[in-house]
């Protein structure tokens, strides 16, 4: 198996390095004795030996039977479906409430907007009012970005969950 790099002055050196890595892997796999006179090979052999050790920890002894039980009962699928239904219901509810809130706010703004603006102008002055509007715009932008980010994240979830 050749190292896939084809160009550059280091190609031969990389090829030798790759061959040493592969030889160390083969020798570790076959349990051959370490070559003592090649320091690079010996180091790769150490690495190959370490990599052939399984990671610490393991699945529980009854993992297979547990998973099989869950899969066969279909309880997880059932729970997920139920959770999905509940989530969908909540989402509809939140949308209705949000729409009612926005509508109320618009109506209130139409009725009391002029009076509110006059009050703010008299208490905060023209400059103060401008700063308040800037602050409101910043808050609006922050909220919009967060909303868009959440939407993007939600969109990414879809295809990955397909399996």
């Amino acid at each position, binding site marked *: 198996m050749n190292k896939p790099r084809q160009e550059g002055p280091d190609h031969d050196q*990389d090829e030798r390095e790759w061959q040493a890595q592969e030889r160390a*892997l083969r020798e570790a796999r076959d349990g051959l004795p370490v070559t003592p006179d090649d320091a690079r090979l010996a*180091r790769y052999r*150490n*690495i190959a030996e370490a990599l052939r050790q*399984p990671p610490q920890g393991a699945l529980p002894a009854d993992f*297979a039977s547990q*998973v*099989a039980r869950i899969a066969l009962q279909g309880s997880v699928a059932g729970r997920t479906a139920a959770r999905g239904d509940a989530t969908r219901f909540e989402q509809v509810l939140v949308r209705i409430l949000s729409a009612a809130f926005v509508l109320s706010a618009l109506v209130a703004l139409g009725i009391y907007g002029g009076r509110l603006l006059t009050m703010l102008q008299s208490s905060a002055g023209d400059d103060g009012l401008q700063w308040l509007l800037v602050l409101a715009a910043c808050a609006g932008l922050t909220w919009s970005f967060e909303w868009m980010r959440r939407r993007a994240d939600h969109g990414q979830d879809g295809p990955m969950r397909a*399996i």
Partner: protein
Amino acid sequence: MALATLATVGVSPCPMDAAESPSQTHGASQEERALVAAVLAGTPGAFERLVRDYQGLCWHIVLRMVRHPEDARELCQEAFLRVHRCLHQYRFDAALKSWIAQVAYSVAKRHLERKRIPLAEAAGGDGLSLAESMGDGFDLETAAADADLHRLLHAAIDALPPLQRTLLTLYHLDDVPIAEISRITGLAEGTIKSHLFRSRKQLRRMLEPDIGVAA
């Protein structure tokens, strides 16, 4: 070292897509076909046997990707439940081992993406040295003094990015050929070789007396 193709390619959520790729290697064996048929027919004990046969591979992949044993256990369960749900899509043109490994890799990769953990180190350069990446919890000098080479190496392997750790484990521990790893991860074979080469060289450099700890 310049790397030609380090960009990580997105993995198909459904193993079927990759199973139809031209770089396929071996199809399913008769034993695998019989096992899949038994699971699909709902034969008692068949799915449990399938899980038992492949849980080691799934554990290696997922644990190497996410590192946290608790998360890894949950993700392994999720992976096998997906296998159970999608087994009817398996077309026998890849080894069952590869198909299941692909599901496990996909589940673990998605978990890392959700947690915004980078899968591989940024392209170009060797990045942080492994000694730096291992953090404060590991004392290189003590390890050298104790001649605890294996502990040092395992800490260094743990300090590699998730993708590199997983590729090394598949190739060295599970003896999965590069073509099969390509199918599992959705990465080009050249990219996988590049990652293997660079990671092992990085580990070797760490053992050099003038840089890390002498072997």
